[in-house]
């Protein structure tokens, strides 16, 4: 029997599906915090989520017949739900609403690792030249330069700024190598949003979100969002670019040990480049998150 999630995790909004990918009148089943959920969309297109009993994936259903429902929110093209009492609004991504952006899901991909490990990998720039060779990095440009990290009290999020990295192919729209500036936000214990210089328009930033659905303490689904300034690529091209990157991260993530994220500062040896990861671990610890992590011994 898996342990019950900590109250903070239980009361969070959690992503469960790309809304458009849920078929109207068909059931899709998934796992959230060790509980089996069933999902569908009604004729009005609105998602409906409930605790699964004997429903199977692919069964027909009339969403109106589902009476005992979990709370649902739709945001950034995704469906979110909560197993406890949803306490807060979901974090804002104001750029998503800009009219000329191309917004898309890039697939919901299962990974055999805890959600916090996946967040931490997303924050890491040190692996770019080795894992995303000739795309997000290349030798000998391996140095992670000094960057700033703060925990914003007001917004309750981890913020890493002035992150700079030389990238051979920063985005689908890139035509040459460029030094790219990143801003990382962690506005939710299991979600991160990154802003990076846009090759097409120097004054704006592409936005990439990774929203992790904690399925069990050691498995999750990564839901990838792209909100891009790109006037030439197709959605298929843009998805392919992001999936190529994510496909490279997957085996690295799945080989991490332990699969839960250790929060004790002595458990793993960080280097200067891991500043954002250290802040993230401390933030999780202070919040009292115990799901998917190895809490600090008290």
């Amino acid at each position, binding site marked *: 029997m898996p342990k019950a999630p900590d109250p903070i995790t239980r009361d969070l909004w959690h992503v469960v599906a*790309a809304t458009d*990918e849920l078929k109207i009148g068909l059931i*899709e089943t*998934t796992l959230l915090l060790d509980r089996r959920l069933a999902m569908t969309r009604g004729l009005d297109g609105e998602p409906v989520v409930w605790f699964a009993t004997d429903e199977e*994936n*692919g069964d027909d259903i009339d969403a109106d017949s589902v009476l005992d429902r979990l709370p649902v929110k739709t945001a950034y093209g995704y469906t979110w739900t909560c197993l406890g009492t949803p306490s807060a609004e979901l974090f804002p991504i104001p750029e998503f609403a800009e009219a000329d952006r191309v917004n898309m*899901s*890039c*697939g*919901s*991909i*299962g*990974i*055999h690792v805890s959600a916090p490990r996946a967040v931490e990998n997303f924050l890491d720039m040190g692996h770019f030249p080795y894992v995303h060779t000739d795309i997000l990095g290349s030798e000998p440009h391996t140095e992670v330069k000094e960057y700033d990290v703060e925990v914003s009290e007001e917004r309750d999020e981890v913020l890493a700024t002035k992150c700079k990295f030389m990238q051979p192919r920063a985005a689908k729209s890139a035509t040459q190598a460029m030094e790219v500036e990143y801003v990382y936000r962690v506005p939710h214990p299991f979600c991160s949003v990154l802003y990076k210089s846009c090759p097409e328009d120097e004054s704006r930033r592409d936005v990439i979100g990774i929203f992790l659905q904690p399925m069990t303490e050691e498995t999750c*689904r990564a839901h990838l969002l792209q909100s891009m300034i790109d006037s030439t690529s*197709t*959605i*298929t*091209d843009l*998805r*392919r670019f992001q*999936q*190529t*990157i*994510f*496909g*490279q991260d*997957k*085996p690295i993530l*799945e*080989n991490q040990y332990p699969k839960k994220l250790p929060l004790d500062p002595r458990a793993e040896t960080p280097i200067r480049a891991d500043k954002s990861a250290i802040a993230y671990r401390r933030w999780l610890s202070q919040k009292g998150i115990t799901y998917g992590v190895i809490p600090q011994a008290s």
Partner: protein
Amino acid sequence: MTITLYDFELSGNCYKLRLLMNILNVPYAIHPVDFFPGREHKADWFLRLNPFGQLPVLKDDDLVLSDSGAILAYLAKKYDTSGQWFPDDPAVTAEILRWHAVADDISATSSAARLALGYSYPFDIEKSQKGAHRIFRILDEHLWFGEKAGRDWLCAPAHPTTADIACFPYVMLSEEGGISRQDYPALRRWTDRVRRIPGFMVMSGIFPAGPAKT
């Protein structure tokens, strides 16, 4: 000649063709197909190319081909000037086709487990994993006895053939399906040899091999 590959980056079956064309130095264009999450391989335009709704499809001028094993044979017969990748010898041809069929069985097990765990396909995970282990055990023995007899590849010739290309990707991607290769040392040594073939290229999820011990 103009070759277009209808391709999905994360597909091992598509990668087989990218890999052989790179080894043979055959230029080709990619037409990306949104297999996941877009399910574009079931779209009307794609079903007109391949009514079975499966990737990959390869177009060589006006010729439209599907099935990765069939296309590997086509590419080798047409573009491999060395004649080594799909030799004419009847016994070797039979041997290669036998391993192309094994490659399909590896897809039906190892790739199915990967699709279930990573891409939420409703396949039986445990059954797929068991099936893959059964095949990997046989492969490992075949390769182990081969090494003892001085044979480095799946088939008899002293060089790799399309059989090696066909079986390679979903062996390498097995861990994404929760199938460890720890118990198959000869299989692992063979994957290192494949990764050192001149012209070898990677796909997302497969990393290059380190230099060979001398």
